[in-house]
């Protein structure tokens, strides 16, 4: 059991403990804890599920049940950065489908896939709440608005000099 908990870093544990400190019981922070682990590792592996479940005093099945419910918990490895590409209605009206094609062509991947160099994973995301600036996408934590093929090229070119976000 302690070996499993050791699978979580001290930083992760500290952040999780902070959530637990104001929760009525440990498993109540399941979602926060999954997000914390993901923030550090990029995704949530089977091992992380087991370690977290033990730490939160719940079963791996119960935790996995929660993890697999939510869109933003990745149960499979993703690239250094996730591109959340909005494909909802306003962006669609403003031509996002063609732009998605453009990104895909540029990076050589389709939605759900990760680039060969493991730099990007392209995922569709429901309406990002920036419809007046459609089409939009997020690259990592950054929101990019009023996308065009050119601006996408610029964003990707720019981004390739920055590093990934998780440890």
């Amino acid at each position, binding site marked *: 059991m302690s070996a499993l908990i050791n699978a979580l870093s001290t930083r992760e544990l500290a952040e999780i403990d902070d959530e637990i400190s104001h929760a*009525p*019981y440990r498993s109540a922070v399941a979602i926060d804890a999954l997000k914390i682990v993901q923030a550090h590792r990029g995704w949530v592996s*089977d091992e992380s*599920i*087991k370690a977290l479940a033990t730490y939160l005093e*719940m*079963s*791996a*099945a*119960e*935790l*996995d*049940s929660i993890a*697999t*419910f939510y869109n933003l918990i990745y149960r499979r490895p993703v690239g250094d950065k996730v591109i959340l590409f909005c494909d909802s209605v306003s962006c669609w009206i403003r031509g996002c489908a063609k732009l998605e094609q453009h990104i895909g062509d540029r990076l050589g991947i389709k939605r759900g896939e990760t680039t060969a160099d493991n730099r990007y994973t392209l995922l569709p995301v429901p309406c990002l709440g920036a419809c007046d600036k459609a089409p939009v996408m997020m690259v990592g934590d950054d929101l990019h608005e009023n996308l065009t093929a050119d601006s996408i090229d610029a964003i990707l070119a720019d981004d390739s000099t920055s590093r990934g976000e998780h440890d």
Partner: protein
Amino acid sequence: MPTIYIDGQAHEVSEGDNLLQAALGLGLDLPYFCWHPAMGSIGACRQCAVLQYQDEDDTRGRIVMGCMTPVTEGARFSLAADRAQAFREDIIESLMLNHPHDCPVCAEGGECHLQDMTVMVGHRDREYQGRKNTHRNQHLGPLIHHEMNRCITCYRCTRYYRDYAGGTDLAAMASHDHVYFGRHEEGVLESEFAGNLVEVCPTGVFTDKSLVHDYTRKWDLQSAPSVCTACSVGCNIMPGERYGKLKRIHNRFNHDVNGYFLCDRGRFGGHFVNSEDRIPAVGKRDGDGRFSAVDADSAVSSIAALLRQGKTIGIGSPRSSVEANYLLRELVGAENYCTGMSAQEGALVQHALQQLEQSQALVPSIRAMESADAVLVLGEDVTNTAPRIALALRQSVRNKAYAMAADLRLEAWQDAAIRNLAQDQRSPLSVLSVAATRLDDVASHTAQLCPDDIARVGFAIAAELEGALPAVDLGAELAELAKTIADTLRSADIPLVVSGTGCGHSGILDASAAIARALTGPDRPAQLSFCLAECNSLGAALVADGAGMGLEEVLELAAQDGIDNLLILENDLFRRTSCSKADSLFQAAGNVVLLDTLTTPTCDNADWVLPTSSFAETEGTLISQEGRAQRHFPVFNSVAPIRENWRWLLDIGHCAEVATCKSMVHFDDVTTSCANTIKTLFGICAAAPAASSVPAADKVPRQTHRFSGRTAMRANISVHEPRQPTDEESPLSFTMEGHSAEHNGALLPYVWSPGWNSNQSLHKYQSAVGGALQGGTAGTRLIEPGDIDAAQESSGSTAPALNAGEYRLVPLYRIFGSEEMSVRAPAVAQLCRPAGLEMPASVAAELGVSNGDGVTLTATTGNVDLEVTINDSLAANCVGYSHGVSGTGGLVPGSATKLCRAENWQRAPELIGTDRGATTA
């Protein structure tokens, strides 16, 4: 009783019901999936939709879910309205979009609730042209087969498994139309009650693996009302047979006992009936020590001749029926009858019986236990000794939630709402045990103590409750615990004390009785329940009628004057005493006659072996730990020369001209004679109707009216169909024709109703949905609260003191392993592990051993080597052995033992077939 209107008709319905329940209760067919009578409503499947009208003038109405709509005075509904019907058809159509068309190869086919509901709503043509979602299945262990493609996402499985039974390793994964019910990763389902998924799932996602591998459709199964013999609870079961083989065991509803659910030992353990270890012939040992088959009748007369000369001791059996034990007693004389239990065990059962008979507390049924609002479990690992009770106690802790719900005027069937409301608030459940138990997760107070301390804390609780009792000197911590537990019990409306013979400690029984006595008041029905070791422990003790030797006494007798004949009824003495003792007994006895079903080490020591029918092939009365006499009936006839235990004994009795046997011909004669001879068993005749109670033409058929292939089944032998066997011993027949069993709850062989092929047809047999059977509840209670309840002297401490270097030896139980017969079912055997000794890490360190090493245990009866398992939850100074598992027969619960590292111990190879947690006892 509110009056509601359904399609213009006025109906009186029960207050607090929902419309679905009410409609089903009125005999109206309203389809449903996610609702379950024992689990309430969540409104997920939307199948039970009806129209509800505002008032008389409302002609349009709106769709509501029957299961989520309370019946209130004057409420108006329509089931028949076109809109409601169309909606229900749309639901089925939606559920069918992804459902495979595999009914012909599906184990659920023919008893599939989804099939029934599909036909009921009239859905036939599907417009959907797209592809079906498919899933990967998981290996869930040897008991349950997983076929996720058939899932209709009703959430019943996880609601049952997790919410009802407390299992944590099965959950709903993913979302939208990808929802998947499974484990985090493949592996054996952990819950001891997983088998109920087979009946809870309305389609074929979770099916009985044994049945899948050796398949028969429900309508081709021959069944009879039966009783589980795998523990003392006596759950009612419906075994199904074809081709002379037991195919599966399903739950048989008993409102007061098992309700809708069984444990896995009971559901899957019965397959020992098909074992290759069945004794096939009558055997007589020759001079060279080998058995040869002999003719049954000549064996009977030879054995009868033996009985007439010399002294015969009869060793009965707590796993045999009352009738068989009684006949044995009559054959050898009451003074020569041994209950077949060890002296310690026999004394404990006798003691328990006495306490129950005298107590003013109610000996509760399982259902009554569910209503308890504070529970104390004293020294019993209920999950592993009487599993169905553990499931009931899990429900009892919800009474707090129901009380909170009542304050908000939420009906009890509002399942999700009540769980959300109560969150983790539960009625108190205190568990004092020698090691952590599987109920601890819902317990309010737990402590792991040695048996003596459990008894002492028990007495301290009694003293807290009743000032007149002598105070018990405990440490501050335990005194505080005793006080806290006493408080929970004192403030309860229905307090319950559950204990038993599991620890082998009479003080624990006394303490439990003392607490129950202290709790019982004029307006408070305290409950007291004892778990016993075997399905007829109580019956065997009652047959002994206050006398009855223990095995050790037989040994003494043998040692003193020798015994001419030993007549052993279905008992393996090597499980009950050490090899050396058993060996010496066999040496001392002149002739050993054994009646049994499966080969056992005792077989190897018998001179005569008579093969007996299994529980599935004979009738018998068993007395459960509740004191409920219940009759099981043969599902099928065993093949000659195998005979029913009672018939062998009666045949011998006739031949030996035993006086009481003379007047007995039929099984019912034995029951009646027993009832008339032994006062406390007077009630057993009422356990089920006698064969003579129905005319031959009105017998209850064991076969469904769709039973097929009766001729074809044996066409390879002969194309002439033989006459169906007649059953002269019971009110049931081996045919398809006859009278349905609606009039008698004890005779229900299967449930079926037009349009309701699945087990959901049960409601057609119930007086109210979820309520008792119309034909009455099976069985009859023999023990009702006594009127004198004198405080009893009890020492509390019975165990010998520990010397330096000694440990207290405590029994640990395993649901799969501790019971003799169920472990011989192949699927269950896969889940069994060899006997072991569990100890805290500190003890292991002292001995220099770790998991998988061996230790030598010094017992009075010789040394035993056992495998070490670290279990840090064990009480201080205690080490626990796997009770009932082969190799532990001579170990005495509570004794002091010395341990050392076993030399020459071979570590077992890694077990790959199962990953069942190694620390669960």
